[in-house]
């Protein structure tokens, strides 16, 4: 089955606040699907809710949330735990604090394999060393015995990636994996992820706010704004033919060397992200949109601009 | 909801402390009899809820015929007095040390830390007992001894809060404006650490009351015939298997008073956002 993850009309609420108001996306095997948007748009929350890792007071609803055809919404916590770290894995934004300081790198890596595949300590250690080498860490045997505080941020993130791969997952969710790293390290980690994804045939759901990363690695892009996916398209098509005013605005903000002119101001989108109350209706972008009219305050239609390109706007 | 519980507890604590303060201040007006007058023929009469009680003595009499209720109320006075004076004394010592160490830093701070460490390693009850045993027990000696021993938490908290405040911008601004150290201490540091210290003071009062009770229980605290609750429990120990109410009553009042003070202190801590640990 080539469709790994199906998310349809996902809604997430933290008490009265609606963090996600209807996100839909799919991730196929072998594809890198980037979920892009600014801070607070709900992209991290979406990723966390796929693995059901949200805090207790979050409520989650969706028309469909399935992994390899299996419904995730009705899965018990124990059932979900069997999938996590196993068939689907996740890496996070803060490598400095995401590893347990009290245990060695090796023990944290081997415990995943031993928990899910009942592997022996020896087999698990061997695989851990293999994966550390795979993610570009030298002297992997020594690293297994080290503690997280002895590694740099970039190394820790590589360990996180290797740890996520221990049980050969089909789906890897990466929540802004390079945001907290230096620029040079960022490029290395992205290249690593791209290579691994290609070699292992993973489906990769990559959360980011950086359009540069999207352009570099994404097969497909979903743009999120104020809790909704406003546009979704293959990468090349999104950059060539953005249909949603927000996407257009975003792309205008990216200065392209050679194309920008000195006498023109850098692009920006006026206004700020609105606060979405419980009874919000219509398009969340209308206050900042040049093309908004009265109908934008009511239900917004979803149009298609191509076989796999859709967007949420009244314009076509 | 947690706030709500805290509030109920805080009000309860405030009510207890208020009642105790009232009893302490107005004790002579509240008691039906003189707590020191002995009445041997009427010793060990039972409280009003038991059969055969004497209507003259609501809570009965102790082993020397003294009115129990009167001794209880006077005991409240003693507990409050000891608690407050000890807290005051240890507070002065501890706050001075802590503020000096936290503000001046360097070798002075090392010395203060050393003093705190040394004080913590000294067994307080033992030393207080030894002092009373060697010099004879008296209220003054008790308060002095406990005051000289119980300053550690004051010192620790005032030191850490002073260090925090010292690094804040408005202190640097005052420094730049040419204020003297003393002025900075008085006008910038002390007002900002005051709320934390009030909370520590309430907890220390509770602790001092418990300590005094323990010392009086062992016979080397408040000297008899002064009716300390600890002493009353000790005197009742010999009869406790036959007349359990004799140790229950002062024990319950002691427990309730300390509980009330602690709840009030916790409530104040929540109110001020203060810290009681470094």
């Amino acid at each position, binding site marked *: 089955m080539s469709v790994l993850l199906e998310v349809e009309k996902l809604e997430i609420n933290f008490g009265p606040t609606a963090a996600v108001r209807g996100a839909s996306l799919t991730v196929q095997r072998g594809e890198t699907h980037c979920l892009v948007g600014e801070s607070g748009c709900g992209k991290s929350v979406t990723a966390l809710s796929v693995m059901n*890792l949200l805090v207790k007071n979050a409520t989650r609803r969706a028309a469909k949330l399935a992994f390899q055809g299996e419904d995730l919404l009705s899965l018990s916590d124990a059932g979900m735990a069997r999938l996590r770290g*196993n068939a689907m894995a996740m890496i996070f934004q803060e490598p400095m604090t995401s590893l347990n300081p009290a245990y060695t790198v090796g023990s944290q890596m081997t415990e995943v394999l031993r928990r899910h595949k009942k592997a022996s300590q020896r087999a698990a250690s061997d695989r851990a060393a293999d994966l550390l080498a795979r993610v570009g860490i030298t002297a992997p045997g020594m690293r297994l015995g080290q503690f997280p505080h002895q590694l740099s941020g970039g190394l820790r993130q590589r360990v996180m990636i290797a740890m996520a791969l221990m049980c050969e997952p089909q789906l890897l969710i990466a929540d802004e994996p390079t945001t907290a790293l230096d620029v040079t390290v960022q490029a290395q980690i992205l290249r690593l992820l791209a290579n691994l994804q290609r070699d292992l045939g993973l489906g990769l759901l990559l959360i980011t706010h950086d359009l540069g990363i999207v352009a570099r690695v994404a097969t497909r892009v979903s743009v999120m704004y104020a809790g909704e996916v406003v546009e979704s398209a293959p990468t090349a098509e999104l950059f060539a033919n953005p249909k949603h005013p927000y996407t257009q605005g975003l792309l205008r903000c990216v200065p392209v060397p050679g194309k920008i002119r000195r006498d023109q101001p850098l692009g920006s989108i006026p206004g700020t992200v609105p606060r979405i109350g419980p009874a919000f209706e219509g398009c969340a972008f209308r206050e900042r949109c040049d093309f908004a009219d009265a109908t934008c305050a009511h239900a917004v239609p979803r149009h298609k601009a191509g076989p796999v390109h859709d967007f949420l706007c009244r314009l076509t | 909801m947690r706030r709500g519980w805290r509030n109920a507890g805080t009000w309860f604590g405030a009510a207890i402390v208020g009642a105790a303060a009232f009893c302490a201040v107005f004790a002579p007006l509240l008691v039906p009899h003189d707590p020191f007058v002995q009445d041997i023929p009427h010793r060990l009469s039972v409280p009003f809820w038991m059969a055969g009680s004497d209507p003259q003595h609501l809570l009965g009499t102790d082993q020397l015929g003294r009115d129990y209720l009167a001794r209880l109320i006077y005991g409240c006075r003693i507990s409050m007095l000891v608690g407050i004076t000890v807290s005051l004394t240890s507070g002065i010592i501890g706050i001075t040390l802590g503020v000096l160490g936290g503000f001046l830093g360097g070798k002075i701070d090392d010395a203060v830390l050393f003093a705190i460490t040394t004080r913590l*390693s000294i067994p307080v009850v*033992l030393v207080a007992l030894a002092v009373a045993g*060697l010099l004879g027990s008296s209220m003054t000696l008790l308060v002095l001894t406990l005051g000289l021993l119980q300053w550690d938490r004051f010192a620790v908290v005032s030191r850490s809060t002073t260090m925090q405040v010292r690094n804040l911008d408005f202190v640097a601004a005052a420094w730049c404006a040419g204020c003297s150290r003393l002025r900075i201490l008085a006008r910038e540091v002390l007002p900002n650490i005051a709320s934390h210290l009030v909370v520590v003071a309430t907890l220390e009062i509770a602790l001092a009351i418990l300590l005094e009770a*323990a010392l009086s229980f062992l016979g*080397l605290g408040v000297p008899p015939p002064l009716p300390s609750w600890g002493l009353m429990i000790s005197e009742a120990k010999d009869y406790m298997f036959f007349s359990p109410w004799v140790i229950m009553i002062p*024990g319950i009042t002691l*427990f309730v008073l300390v509980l009330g003070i602690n709840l009030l202190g916790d409530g104040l801590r929540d109110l001020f956002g203060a810290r009681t640990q470094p």
Partner: protein
Amino acid sequence: MLRFLVRRLIVALLVTATVMVLAFILTRLSGDLAISIAGPNATQADIETVRKAYGLDRPLIVQFFDWAGRAATGDLGDSYFFKTSVSSLLAERMPVTLTLGLTGLLIALLVSLPLGILGAVRENTAFDRLVQIVAVLGQAMPSFWLGLILMIVFGLWLGWLPISGTDSWQSYIMPGVVLAFSAIPALTRLTRAGMIQAISSDYIRTARAKGLTRASILLKHALRNAAIPVVAIAAVQLGFMLGGSIVIEQVFALHGVGFLAWESIQKNDFPVVQSVVLVLAVIYVGLTMLADILNAVLDPRLRSS
């Protein structure tokens, strides 16, 4: 790491030396010891004899260094009352106090750890509030009174436990429970706070993302970090328990070091009193060093310097 330990050791020695001075001063507070030892009916000649016999005619400084020097080698002098060496008295009584202290600590940990963990896991529920209430009540409880109540209920009415003496291991249960009460509030609060912090940390989110079992996440990952300060404080609490055992030992007639100190105060047995203060202080200092070592052992971040 080694440098840190060496520095702590130096501080520990200095503290011990200071306590020695203080303990010495403590017993000399009442003025002329010879008069106290000789008794109320002594004549002037008797007092002089006593003074010479006990070396109390020497200058105070000399007396101090004599005692301090010998104490450093383990010779704490002789008891005025028991007519044996203080060291042998302490050696004889120490096991009782240690057993009592360790029992108290064990009970305290057995109660505090589960309560703290459960309170954190069920944060802000009715159970959590119950845990906090227990902590508040425990803090207000007068230990000697609790001991007496337990005696009445479990010793007299139910007859389950012995009310005095150290004949069997059951003798340590009630006094152990009373001692534990003094430590339970602090340990419970610390465990709960540490667990709440650990549970909301990023590495626990990672552990959940790895699909580990709930037990593994709580006990292997969260507790391991939350327990670091608890273990250190527990060692210090043991120090407080040992130092404060005098009240409990008196209530339950346990012949430990605290009881010995109590008897010695009554009898003006100064060498014992000053030695007990010193020994208890040394034990406390040792336990705080143990706490530092435990911290370093449990927290890998403290090990490499």
